[in-house]
C-alpha cells in the first residue's frame, strides 16, 4: 500500500516535493520546522493516496529481499528522483490544490485588499485622506504638548524666541521713530519737548517710554577709508583684541557688496546689523566713522555722526590726508570722538 511505501521512503517523497517546487513551509505549520518525517505525516493525513496506488512503484525498498535481489542482478540503482514517481498532471494539480488551498485563498484575499488600498492612494481624494488623519495627528500633538510642556517649549524657543525678540525690538524702534518724527527733533530740552508733545497730541505714555528706551554706544572706530587702517578707537566696554582689523574688514565688506550687487554705483554701506547690535557707518572724504551700538538710537544720531565727521575733516584734514599708518596724535583726534560715546 502506498502508505507503507511512503513510510518506507520518506526521503524520496521529499525529493519529489522539492522537484515540484512545493515549498515545505507551506506544508508544515509555520511554527514547526519541516522535517521529512513531519512532512510525510502531514501529507498522509491530508491526502487520500488510494488512487495513486497503482502508479506509485515501490521505490528503493529499504529491506525487501526482492529488491536486494534486483540490485544484485546488476540493474543500476535508480536515483530517488522525480521520474521514479510518475503522477499525471491532473493528479499533480490535485495534490497542489490540496496542499496549497489555504494559502491560495489567503493570498487572493490579500491581493484584493492591497489593490483596494492602492486605489485609495491613487485616487485624487488626498484631501479626504488628510481630513481623516488630521484629528488623529492633532490629538497626538495636543497630548504630547500637555504631557511635556517644558520639552516642547525648549524645542521651540530657539526659533520663536529669536523672532519674537527681533519683532519686539523692531516694534520699539518703529514706535521711537514715530514719536521722534512727530516731534521732529528730540534733542530739545526736556520742558520744550513736553510742551511739543502736548501740542502735537503725542500720547504722554508713548513719549515717556521713548525717553526710557535703552541705547548705548559700545565702540567707535575712526577708519582710514582707502586702506581700512585704524586711525583711532574708543571703547565703552573695554579693550577689543581685533580693533585694528575691523576697519579692514568693514572696507572689504563694503567693496564686496558694492562690486557684487551695485557695480558702478557710488553707494555706501550704512549699517550692519547683528541681533540687536548694529554697526552704523558714515563716510568722510578721507576717514570714516564706524559706531557699534545697541538699542534704539536717539533721533538725529546719524546726522550727529555726519556732522562730527565733517567737523573732524575740517579741523584735522591735513593730518588725515597724510595718514599712512603712522599714529596720529590722540589729543588731536579724540576730542571729536569722545562726545559720541556719551550720547
Amino acid at each position, binding site marked *: 500500500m502506498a502508505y507503507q511505501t511512503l513510510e518506507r521512503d520518506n526521503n524520496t517523497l521529499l525529493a519529489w516535493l522539492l522537484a515540484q517546487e512545493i515549498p515545505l513551509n507551506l506544508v508544515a505549520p509555520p511554527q514547526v520546522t519541516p522535517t521529512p518525517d513531519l512532512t510525510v505525516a502531514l501529507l498522509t493525513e491530508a491526502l487520500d493516496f488510494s488512487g495513486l496506488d497503482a502508479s506509485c512503484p515501490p521505490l528503493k525498498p529499504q529491506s525487501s529481499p526482492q529488491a536486494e535481489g534486483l540490485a544484485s542482478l546488476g540493474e543500476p540503482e535508480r536515483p530517488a528522483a522525480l521520474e521514479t514517481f510518475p503522477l499525471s498532471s491532473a493528479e499533480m494539480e490535485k495534490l497542489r490544490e490540496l496542499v496549497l488551498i489555504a494559502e491560495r485563498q489567503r493570498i487572493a484575499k490579500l491581493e484584493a485588499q492591497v489593490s483596494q488600498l492602492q486605489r485609495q492612494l491613487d485616487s485624487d481624494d488626498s484631501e479626504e485622506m488628510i481630513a481623516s488623519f488630521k484629528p488623529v495627528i492633532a490629538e497626538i500633538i495636543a497630548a504630547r504638548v500637555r504631557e511635556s510642556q517644558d520639552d516642547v517649549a525648549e524645542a521651540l524657543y530657539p526659533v520663536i524666541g529669536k523672532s519674537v525678540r527681533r519683532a519686539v525690538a523692531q516694534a520699539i524702534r518703529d514706535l521711537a521713530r514715530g514719536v521722534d518724527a512727530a516731534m521732529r527733533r528730540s534733542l530739545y530740552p526736556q520742558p520744550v519737548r513736553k510742551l511739543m508733545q502736548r501740542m502735537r497730541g503725542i500720547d504722554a505714555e508713548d513719549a515717556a517710554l521713548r525717553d526710557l528706551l535703552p541705547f548705548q554706544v559700545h565702540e567707535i572706530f575712526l577708519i582710514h577709508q582707502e586702506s*581700512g587702517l585704524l586711525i583711532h578707537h574708543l571703547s565703552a566696554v573695554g579693550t577689543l583684541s581685533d580693533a585694528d582689523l575691523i576697519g579692514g574688514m568693514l572696507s572689504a565688506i563694503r567693496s564686496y557688496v558694492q*562690486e557684487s550687487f551695485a557695480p558702478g554705483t557710488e553707494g555706501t554701506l550704512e549699517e550692519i546689523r547683528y541681533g540687536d547690535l548694529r554697526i552704523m557707518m558714515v563716510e568722510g572724504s578721507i576717514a570714516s566713522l564706524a559706531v557699534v551700538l545697541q538699542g534704539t538710537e536717539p533721533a538725529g544720531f546719524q546726522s550727529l555722526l555726519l556732522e562730527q565727521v565733517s567737523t573732524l575733516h575740517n579741523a584735522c584734514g591735513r593730518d588725515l590726508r597724510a595718514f599712512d599708518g603712522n599714529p596720529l596724535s590722540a589729543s588731536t583726534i579724540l576730542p571729536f570722538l569722545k562726545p559720541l560715546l556719551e550720547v
Partner: protein
Amino acid sequence: MIQRKVCLVGDFAVGKTSLFSRFVYNRFSESYMTTIGVRLQRKVMLVEGQELTLILWDTEGGQDSTAVKRTYLGGAGGAIVVCDLTRESSIRHWPDYIQLLRQINPTILLTLAANKVDLLSPTHPHRTLAQQIAQEAKIPLIFTSANTGEQVENLFQTLAKELLRAEVFH
C-alpha cells in the same frame, strides 16, 4: 604703533594663503573658505628694533591679474607678488601684477615670492626666469616654500624693512 597694509597677490593656487598662514600662524595649511574673497590678519613684527604691525590682506587670485579686486589693493603700503615656480605662466604674469599695483599706488613697495621652491630641482630654468623678471623690475626676490617654511619669515622681513626704510625718507 606703526601699521602698514600689505597685500598678497598672484595667480590662483600659487600659495598666497599658504604663505599667509605659515607666516601668521606658523602652520602650513589651513582649510577655510573666504566668501568675500579676502582674508585679513595682523602680524606684529620687530624690524631692526622697531615695532611694525602688518595688516595682511590675503586676496583671492584668479587666472591672471585681471581677476584681482582692485578695491582690495587700495591704500596698501606694500605687496607680495607670489608665483608658483612649477607653473611658468604664474611667473610670466608677475609684470602684470606689478603694473596693476603701481597703477593703484605709485609708491607701493613690492617683494617677489617665488614659491614652492621645494618642488624644483636646483638647476631648473624657472629659477632663472624668475630672477630675470625680478632684475628687470628691480624688485627683491625671495625663493620660498610655504610647505617647509623656508625663507617665509625672511620674505616678510624683507618687505617690512623696505617699509620702514621708506619711513626714514618720509
